[in-house]
C-alpha cells in the first residue's frame, strides 16, 4: 500500500464510489488497422495493426523512439496517421478531433492545471462537456474518493506529492467516464517505492472497473507484466511481438522480445531436431540440450536457446541432460537473491537463485541445469531483418 502520509485518511478505494462509477463506463475496444505515422520522410509508426479488446489492459513497451507513445497519441488524436484507420468501439476516429473522442488520458508528468484545485482539475472535463452542475457536484467527490484523494480536494497541485498528483490525474481522466483510458508512462516520474504502490493501486482500480479498456505505454517491463492482459513489444516503429504477458515471457518470439521483456540467457545452438510433443533437441558444442519448440522452428536449423535466469538450477534436475558447465565470473548478493554469472564456452550465462550460504568463488567451475519445459527455442533472425 501507499504510505499513509502520502495518501491521507481517504486512501482506501471506496467500493461504493467504484460501484457508482462503474456501470457508466462504456466498454469499448481500440483498433489499429495498418496505422502508419510519419513526420516528413521519417516513419515513426509503421503499419501497426493491433486490437485492444473491451475491458482489457494492453501494454505497449519498447525502448525510446520505438513508436509506442506515437501509437497512443494517434488514439488520442494528437498525431494524424498518414495511413490506416483507428477505431474506438465501432467508431472510426481516425479523423475525429481529440476533444470529440471520449478518451481519458494520463501522462507521465501528470499535467494537472496548476491554477486549479484538485476538485477543479477533476471537474474540468465535465465542465468542458457541459455537464449539469449536480452531475459535477456528485461525480467529482466520487472520483476523488475512488483514487483515495477525497480529503485533498481543496489542494492545489503544488501542495500534493507526485503520487497524489498522479491520483488526481487519474480521477480527472475517469470523471468523464471515458470509453478508453490512455496511460502514457504514468509512473515514470515517481520514485521506486511510490511506483510499486501505484502499480498495485492501478491493478486494483482495474479490478474494480473491469469494463475499462486501457492502453498503457511504458518502458518498464515490470509495469507491463504486472498490469497487462496482453503486451505489445515495439521497436523502430514496428510491433514486433504481441501476446499474453505469460506467453510472451515464456515463449518470446524473437531475440529482442526475449531480452526486453525480462532477463534472458540466449545461447546459439545448432541442428534442431524435433522430438515430438512440441519439444526439440539441439547441440550446444558437445552438449545435447532439449527445450520447447513453441514457435515450430524447422529441423536442421540454427537458433537461440532461451532460458530465464531463475529457471537455471544448481542442483541436478530429475530428468537427464540440459546440463551446462562453466566458470564463475562474478557473484552478486542482492539481499533476497543471488546472481551468478558464468562463462559457458565463451557465452555469458546468468543465474538467479535464493541466497547461498557458501556462494561459489569467481574462477570456480560450476554446473547448472534447466528443465526442458522451462526453456524455449527462439529464431536467430532479428525481426524485420
Amino acid at each position, binding site marked *: 500500500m501507499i504510505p499513509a502520509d502520502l495518501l491521507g485518511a481517504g486512501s482506501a478505494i471506496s467500493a461504493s464510489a467504484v460501484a457508482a462509477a462503474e456501470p457508466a463506463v462504456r466498454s469499448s475496444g481500440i483498433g489499429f488497422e495498418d496505422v502508419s505515422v510519419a513526420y516528413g520522410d521519417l516513419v515513426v509508426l509503421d503499419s501497426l495493426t493491433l486490437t485492444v479488446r473491451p475491458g482489457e489492459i494492453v501494454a505497449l513497451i519498447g525502448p525510446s523512439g520505438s513508436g509506442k507513445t506515437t501509437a497512443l497519441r494517434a488514439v*488520442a*488524436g*494528437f498525431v494524424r496517421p498518414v495511413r490506416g484507420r483507428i477505431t474506438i468501439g465501432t467508431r472510426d476516429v481516425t479523423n475525429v*478531433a*481529440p*476533444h*470529440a*473522442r*471520449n*478518451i*481519458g*488520458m494520463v*501522462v*507521465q*508528468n501528470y*499535467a*494537472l*492545471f*496548476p*491554477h486549479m484545485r484538485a476538485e477543479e482539475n477533476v471537474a*474540468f*472535463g465535465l465542465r*468542458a*462537456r457541459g455537464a449539469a452542475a449536480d452531475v459535477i457536484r456528485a461525480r467529482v467527490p466520487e472520483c476523488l474518493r475512488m483514487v483515495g484523494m477525497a480529503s485533498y480536494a481543496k489542494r492545489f497541485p503544488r501542495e500534493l506529492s507526485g503520487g497524489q498528483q498522479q491520483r488526481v*490525474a487519474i480521477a*480527472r*481522466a475517469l470523471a*468523464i467516464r471515458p470509453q478508453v483510458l*490512455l496511460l502514457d508512462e504514468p509512473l515514470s516520474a515517481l520514485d521506486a517505492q511510490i511506483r510499486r504502490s501505484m502499480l498495485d493501486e492501478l491493478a486494483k482500480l482495474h479490478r474494480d472497473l473491469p469494463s475499462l479498456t486501457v492502453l498503457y505505454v511504458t518502458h518498464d517491463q515490470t509495469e507491463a507484466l504486472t498490469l497487462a492482459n496482453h503486451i505489445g513489444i515495439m521497436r523502430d516503429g514496428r510491433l514486433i511481438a504481441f501476446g499474453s504477458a505469460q506467453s510472451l515471457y515464456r515463449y518470446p518470439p524473437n531475440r529482442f522480445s526475449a531480452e526486453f521483456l525480462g532477463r534472458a540467457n540466449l545461447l546459439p545452438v545448432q541442428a534442431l531436431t524435433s522430438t515430438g510433443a512440441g519439444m526439440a533437441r539441439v547441440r550446444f558444442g558437445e552438449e545435447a540440450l532439449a527445450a520447447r519448440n513453441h514457435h515450430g522452428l524447422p529441423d536442421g536449423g540454427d537458433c537461440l536457446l532461451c532460458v530465464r535466469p531463475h529457471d537455471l538450477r544448481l542442483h541436478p534436475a530429475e530428468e537427464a541432460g540440459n546440463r551446462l558447465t562453466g566458470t564463475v565470473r562474478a557473484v552478486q548478493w542482492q539481499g533476497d537473491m543471488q546472481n551468478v554469472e558464468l562463462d559457458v564456452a565463451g557465452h555469458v550465462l546468468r543465474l538467479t537463485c535464493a541466497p547461498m550460504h557458501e556462494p561459489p568463488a569467481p574462477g570456480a567451475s560450476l554446473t547448472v541445469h534447466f528443465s526442458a519445459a522451462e526453456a524455449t527455442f527462439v529464431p536467430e533472425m532479428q525481426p524485420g531483418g
Partner: protein
Amino acid sequence: MADLAIALPRSGEPPSAGGLWIVPPLLALAALFFFPLGLIVRQALAGDSGAVSLSHFTEVLGSGQFHDALHHTIVIAVSSTAGCLVLGFVLSVLITFTPFPGGKLVARLIDTFIALPTFLVALSFTFIYGSAGILNESLMRLLHVELPPVDFLYSQWGVILSEITVYTPFVMRPLLAAFSLIEPAQIEVASSLGARSLRIVGRIILPAALPALVAGGSLCLLLTVNEFGIVLFIGAKDVITLPLLIYDKAIQQFDYTAACVIAAINVALSLCLYSLYRFVVMYFGGRRAGLV
C-alpha cells in the same frame, strides 16, 4: 556558516574602503538625474520669482489645456495598452500554440520593433495611411473620389494605432516566455477531456499567462503615458498629451515654469505607474512572468 561569518561585516567595525566604490556611480546619478529633477521641481514651485508656493501648480491644474492633455494622455495610454494586450496575446498564442513555418522568425521580427525608434512606425504609417499614402491613393483611384477616404491617421486613433504597433512586442516578450513554460501535455490533456480551443485558451492558457500579461500591460501603460515621438510625428489635430504639452510650453511658449509643473506631474504619474508595475512583477513573481 563559517564562510558566511567571514563574508558578513562584523558589527561596530567601520565599512571597508571597498565600499567607497559606490560613491562615483552615486555622484553620477545625482548629477545626471536627481539634480536636473530637483531643478525642475524647484522651478515648478518657485517659478521665476524664487518664492516657493503652490500657485503655479494651482494655475496649471486649473487650466483647460492641462485637463485636455491629461485626458488625451490617459485615453491614448489606456487604449493603446488595451490594444497591445489583445494583439500581443492573440499573436503570442498563435506563434506558440499553432506552430507554422517561419513562426519563430515572425516572433523575432516582432521582437526587433523594441529596438527601433518609435517615430519610425509613425513615419511608415504616413506612407501607408496618410492623405497621400498608398492606401488612400489606391482607394481614390479605385473609387474615383477626390478626397482621401481613409482619414484616421491624424487623429487620436492614428496615435493609438501607432503606439499599439510599437508597444505590442513589450507585451509579447513576457507572454512568449510565459507560454514556453506551459506544458504541452496540459493542452493535450485538456483537449482529450473535451475542451475546445476557446476553453483551453480561456481556462488554461490565459490563467497561466496572467502574470506576464499584467506585467507587460503595466510596462506598456508606463511607456505610452510618456510617449512623445509618435504623438509629435503624427501631428494629430487637437491631440495634445502631457509630454507634448511640456514641449509646447517650454520650447514654443518659453513658459518654463508651466512646463516644469507639468513635467513634475508627469514624473509623479510615471512613478505611480512604475510602482504599480513593480508591484505587479513582485506580486506575481518576475521569474514566472518571464521578466527576469
